[in-house]
């Protein structure tokens, strides 16, 4: 071992509390002198700053509720597609397509995750709005054809459309409030 490697090992031992009692006094003194505790008021001040910042990234209640509601509706449609494909097909007068229903359900689950992201962090809300709102509004418009044909489908798609618009509005409102 070279001198610098030996010293490095000795420093590691001193810092790790396993240094020899008859070890290098310079290292012992330097380690002890460097090991001071930060003043409690400094720690508290920085901690308060971190917490303030964390709260700034917390979305408002309305945005969270709308985002979670839209996610729940997407998930319920995904589950319905998988477990009640026959019933849906029968009510809308179309042939049942389990394969398409299953893949549609996977896509809806992904959209649900995107929508729910707005409830976790304010900074994620734009992604939620850009991905989930257009899909929700499109599903809402598509559901117009189910009025008078399939009540459950009409209610589901209308809810999606309304929540899609509400999500965009809640995000816009949340942004304005967070800046004031």
């Amino acid at each position, binding site marked *: 071992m070279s001198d610098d490697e030996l010293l490095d090992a000795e420093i590691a031992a001193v810092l790790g509390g396993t240094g020899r009692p008859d070890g290098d006094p310079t290292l012992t003194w330097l380690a002890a002198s460097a090991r001071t505790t930060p003043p409690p008021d400094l720690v508290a*001040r920085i901690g308060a700053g*971190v917490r303030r910042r964390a709260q700034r*990234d917390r979305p408002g209640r309305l945005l969270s509720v709308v985002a979670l509601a839209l996610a729940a509706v997407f998930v319920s449609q995904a589950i319905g597609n998988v477990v009640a494909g026959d019933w849906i097909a029968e009510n809308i007068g179309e042939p049942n397509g389990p394969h398409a229903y299953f893949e549609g359900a996977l896509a809806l689950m992904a959209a649900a995750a995107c929508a729910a992201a707005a409830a976790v962090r304010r900074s994620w809300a734009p992604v939620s709005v850009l991905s989930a709102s257009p899909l929700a509004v499109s599903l809402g418009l598509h559901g117009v054809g189910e009025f008078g044909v399939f009540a459950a489908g009409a209610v589901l798609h209308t809810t999606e459309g309304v929540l899609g618009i509400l999500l965009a509005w809640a995000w816009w409102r949340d942004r304005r409030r967070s800046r004031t």
Partner: protein
Amino acid sequence: MQPGTGGFAEVYAEHVTPVWRYVRLRVPADADAEDVTSQVFERAIRSWSGYDGTRGSVGGWLMGIARHTVADWWRRHGRELPTDLAASGLGEGVADDDPEGEALRRLGADEVRRRLGHLTAREREALALRFGSELTSPQIAELLGITPSAARMLVHRAVGRLREVMGDE
């Protein structure tokens, strides 16, 4: 550790002490160290979303911010230091272009900072990282952009010089 303000609370709790200890060894007074440490965490939380865990440890990332913040502090406050420092006669054997060392020798609040003021800027930095932040030689090497063996040699040289300073007293 992934970016997110929630995660930053854990980062702060774990790293406030090593950052404080590093900064304290680099500036003359504890009050200065408090200001600089606060600034380090303000900067860190602002850029937390850009932290990439694949490019290095969070501790190394924070120490990088701390190094820059200390350098900025010296740029701002170096001009405000007493003008007679250069003529103080305390800088024997030390490079003339090291106002930071001169200020530490003259204004250092305690023995350790006054003694570190006799080292070169690079040696001081290495010792502050090794003993203040308690980084390993490979971590210091990564921060300073040198090889681990060069980092070990730098610390070795700095400790040797510190022994001389203590022996001369």
